[in-house]
C-alpha cells in the first residue's frame, strides 16, 4: 500500500484513501470535432506507460475529494512529487538539481 501526499490536505496518507485516475497532462481537446480519427485515438487511448517517472493523476476520493497530479517512479513505485491539478508539468531535471 502506497503512501501518498495530498497537495490539498498537505498530509501524507495511505493509498486506500485515494483512487488512481490515469496518466496526467492529457488535456481534453478544446474542439474534438476538429481532430482527425488518429488524433482522437491518441487522446483516447495512447498512453506513455512510462517505465520510470510517470506523470499521473490521483483523486483523494475518501478525503478532500480533489484530483491532483503526481510523479511516481513506476519501477520503485516511489512518489517523486505531487502537485495540484492545473499546475504545469514539472521539470524533473530542475527538481533534481535543486536537491
Amino acid at each position, binding site marked *: *500500500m*502506497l503512501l501518498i501526499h495530498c497537495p490539498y490536505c498537505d498530509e501524507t496518507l495511505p493509498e486506500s484513501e485515494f*483512487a488512481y485516475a490515469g496518466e496526467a497532462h492529457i488535456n*481534453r481537446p478544446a*474542439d*474534438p*470535432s476538429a481532430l482527425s*480519427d488518429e488524433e482522437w485515438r491518441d487522446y483516447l487511448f495512447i498512453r506513455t506507460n512510462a517505465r520510470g517517472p510517470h506523470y499521473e493523476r490521483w483523486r483523494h476520493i475518501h478525503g478532500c475529494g480533489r*484530483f491532483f497530479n503526481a510523479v511516481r517512479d513506476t519501477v520503485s513505485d516511489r512518489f517523486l512529487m505531487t502537485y495540484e*491539478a492545473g499546475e504545469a508539468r514539472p521539470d524533473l531535471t530542475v527538481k533534481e538539481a535543486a536537491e
Partner: protein
Amino acid sequence: MSRYRIPGMGRVDPAATVSFTFDGRTYQGLRGDTVASALLANGVHLMGRSFKYHRPRGVVTAGSEEPNALIGTSRGKGRFEPNTRATVQELRAGLTTESQNKWPRLSFDIGAVNDRAYMLFSAGFYYKTFMWPRSFWDKVYEPFIRAAAGLGKSPTEVDPDSYAHRNLHTDVLVVGGGPAGISAALTAAKSGARVVLVDENPEMGGSLLSDPSVRIDGRGSWAWLAEQLSQLRAVGVRLMTRTTAIGYYHQNFVGLVERVTDHLDQPPHGAPRERMWHVRAEQVVLAQGALEKPLVFDGNDRPGVMLAGAAQTYLNRYGVKVGDNAAVVTSHDSAYYAAFDLVDAGARVAAIADTRDSVRPDLLDAARKRGIQVLTGHTATATEGRLRVKSVRVNPVRNGQVGAGRKIACDVLLISGGWTPSLHLFSHTKGSLTWDADSRTFLPNHKTEACQIAGAGRGLWGYGPVLEDGVKAGMAAAQALGRSAEGSDARVEGDRPGTGSSQKELPTDRSPGKAKAFVDYQNDVTAKDIRLAVREGMRSIEHVKRYTTNGMATDQGKMSNINGLMIAADALGKEPPQVGLTTFRPPYTPTSFGAFAGYHKGATFEITRKTPIDPWAEARGAVFEPVSLWRRAWYFPQAGEDMHAAVARECRMTRASVGMFDASTLGKIEVAGPDAVEFMNRMYTNPWTKLAPGRCRYGLLLGEDGFIRDDGVIGRMSQDLFHVTTTTGGAARVMNMMEDYLQTEWPDLDVWLTSTTEQWATVALNGPNARKVLEKLVEGQDLSDEAFPHMSVAECTVAGLPARLFRISFTGELGFEVNVPARHGLQLWKAIHDAGQQYDICPYGTETMHVLRAEKGYIIVGQDTDGTVTPQDAGLDWAIGKAKKDFVGKRSLSRPDIVAPNRKQLVGLLTEDGTKLEEGAQIVLDPNQSLPMTMAGHVTSSYDSVALGRPIAMAVVTGGHGMMGKTVHIPMPNGTIRATVTSTNFYDPTGERLKA
C-alpha cells in the same frame, strides 16, 4: 518426567504438565513446550513423511523454518489445520495432532515404495513421460499424479473462529526480538521515538534463549534479557510476541500476524484466533538473525539428523536432550557450542567431524576437555537407521581425495553447514544483495526503503558485535527521525564467536549419482537433481528451482536455497552471484487465510446497503436480489406464489390500478451553481438550456468513447440547480466522472456537485390510479395534468413531509416519484400504502419494474446496453442535442466503425409460436448454417408480458432498425425459434396512458 527431559534446564514450567496426543497416543509435555520439544522429550523423533518418496523424517530445526515435522493440529469441530510446524505449535491442554502423508501409519507407509523407484523420479521426470498413449493422460496418468499430491488434508468444515485487523502507526518497527533487535529497540525508544518490537516466538530473546551461559554486563544472559525487557516496557516500547512480520510492502508498510489464541487452553469468549496488523513505520529495523543450513550428504535426512543449533535450543530452552549419544558433522564453529552444552548436560558426543582442515585452538581445547574427539578435514558419506539414525559414516578428505570411511554410532546426528542471514523481508522490498566472498553468504546491499539491518542479518557473529550493531541500528533509526540517540556498550563474557565455511554437497567416496543427499527435505530434492537440471540446460537459479522444485516447499527455501545455489553454481562453474538467488516472496511463513480476511467474513464480508424501506419489505416477505452493493426487493410473493405468479400479479395490478416501488437506490446528484446548465450541456448528450425550471428530461451519459455509460431522469429545480438521477450501480461512477471533468477539464465553471443519493428516500407510484392515491397526501402542488404535466418536478409536501415530487414514469403508466428526506422514507412508504388501500395498491419489486419498462421499450443500461452500444444503436438518437457543438463522447460517434452500417441495434422481438426467449440467447439470420454460426445479435431482455398476453423480448440485431417485420432465428439446444423484429415500444405506443 519424560525420559529426555533434564530437570533444572530450560524455560518450561516443570510444575505444569500438559497432555496432548500425536497419532492417537497421549503424551505429556510441559507448559512452554512446542509439540516438537515435547515429542523429543518423550524420545519421539519420527514426525513426518516427505512429499515424493515418503521417507521417514524427524525434526530438523527448532523454529518456523522447519521443513519436516509438519503435523495436522486440531481443537475440535471446524478447528483442524494441516501442515502445522510442530516446532512452532505450543502445547495446550487437549491439543490433538496427527502425522501426514502416510498410509496406513507413520512407521509403515506404503507410499515409501516411491523411495525404491528413486532413480526414476528424477527432477522433471513428469515432463518426459506420461504422454503415450494420448488418452491415458486424462484417464490414468493425471489422476494418479494428482492423487499423490499434497501433504496434509484440507479442512472440511466451516471455521468457527474469528480473525481481527488493526492498523498501527509507529516511528520505529523492529522485527526480531533477539539481542540485536532488543538493543536497537531500546536505543531508539530512549531517543523518544515510538517503537514496536515484534518477534514470532512466544517470548523475546532470540538466540539468547538458547545461550544461557553467556554473560552480559556481569549477569547471566537470561537475567540480562529480563532486565532489558523491563526497560523496554518502562520506556513504552510495544512488545509483540507470537507475531510474525509476514511481508514488507511499499513505503515501510509491514504486515504482521499475531497468533492470539492457538496456544491457550481455553481461549476467552470473543478473542480472535489471529490478528493481522497493518503497520506503517517511519523506520524499520530488520533484526531477524540468521538461519542455520544443513549439510548435504547421503542420508542427511534420517530422523535424528538435525541442525546443531536446534539441538542446542531444545536443550537450553526446553530442557530436552535430543539424544544420549550424539555425533556432529559441521563446517561452522557454532556446532561446537551445541556439542559442549550437550556434554555439559550429561549426554555423550562421540565425535565432531569438521569439514574444515583447521579449527580454532580454543574450540579444540574445549572439546578435548569434554572428551569429544574432533576429526578435522572430514566429510560425511552415509548414515544408517530406518526410523532413527544409528550411525554416520565419516571419511577423511586430503587434497580433494576422500579416504576410507568409518562408522560412528550415534542416536542423534547434529549437522551445521553454517548460517545464512535471514533477509526475506529485505528481499520483499527489492533491496539488492551482495555476495560476500569471505563468508560465502549474501548480505544486504542497496536499500530501497527506510530501513536498517542489524546483527546476524548482516553476517555478524557473537553477542558482542551483534549487540553493538543493534545499538547502532537503533541510533541510525532515531537519527533518521531527527532525534538524537545515545549509544551504549554491552560487556560480554563467555561470548561464542564463530566462523565457518560454506559447502556444496559434501565430497564422497561413493557414486555421487546414487547418493540421496537432500537439499530440499520436504520436496525430496537431492544434489543429484540439481546437477541434472543444470545438465539439461537450466542455467538460471529460477529454472533450477522450477525444474527441481527446490525451495518451493512450505519452508520457502529457508533450508534449501543457499545449498541449492552452491551446488548449481558448482555445476555451472560459476560463482553463486552469477547464478543468482531466487526472490523471496511474502508471507515470511505460511499464514492462515482467516488472518488475511479479518472481519470480512460472513455478514461483514462486504457492505450490504439497504434502503430506509427495506425493513418493511423484509417484514412483508419480499425476496431480495443483490444489485451492486445494494440489496433490493426483487418481488413480493404472497402465499402460494412463485416468482412468476408474484410478478404477473404485480404487473397486472400496477397496470390496472396502482403499484408502488422503492426507488431509493437510484443515484442522486445535486448539480448547483451559475454554470450548472453549461456543465450539464457538456456532460450529457441532451440539450439543457431550454429546459425550464420545474421540468425534467431523460438524460443520457456517454463515455468519451461514445458508448452509453448511464442514464436517468434529470429535473431542473431552479435556474442554477439540477436534480440528477443515475442508475443504482452507476451512482458512484457517474459522480466521479463528473468531478473529474469539473475539476480537471473545466475548473473555470462555477458548479458544485453533491451526492444526495442517501439524503432522499424515493417512492415511485405508477398506474392509472396513481394520482388519486397521491392527491390525498400532497399539499402545495396541483397534480392535475394541466398544472403538473408529464415530466414535471416540484417541491411540495407529501404526507406532511417536505418532498421533491417528480411526474415521471418508467412503466408507461401515469407515474410519480416522491423524494423525501431519508429518515422519513419508511413513513412516506406506509402513508402511500395506507392511502392506496382503496385502490388495492400493490408494492412491486425490481423484477416487475423490469417487465413494465420492457413493455415500453425503456432500456436498462448494463442489460440492454453493454458498454459497446451507442445512442444510435439503442435507438436513442432523439436524446442527442444535435445543435450542440460538443459533449462527452460526441467526437467518437463519428468514428468509421461507429457510423458503419450493420451495427447491432436495439429492437423488439416477438416469437412466432409464443415461446418466451432466454435472455442471452443468440440470434441468427440463416438457421441452416453449420457451426460456427454467424450470429446477428442476442436477446437482452425477455419477459412474459401480462399486459400483452404474450412474451416480449428486446434484442440487439445487426442492422436491426432496418429489419422491422422481418424474421430472425434463435437456435436453441432443442430447436430453433422464429421471431419477428418489431419496435421495442410494445405497449401503448402512442403514450396515452402517460398523459392521463
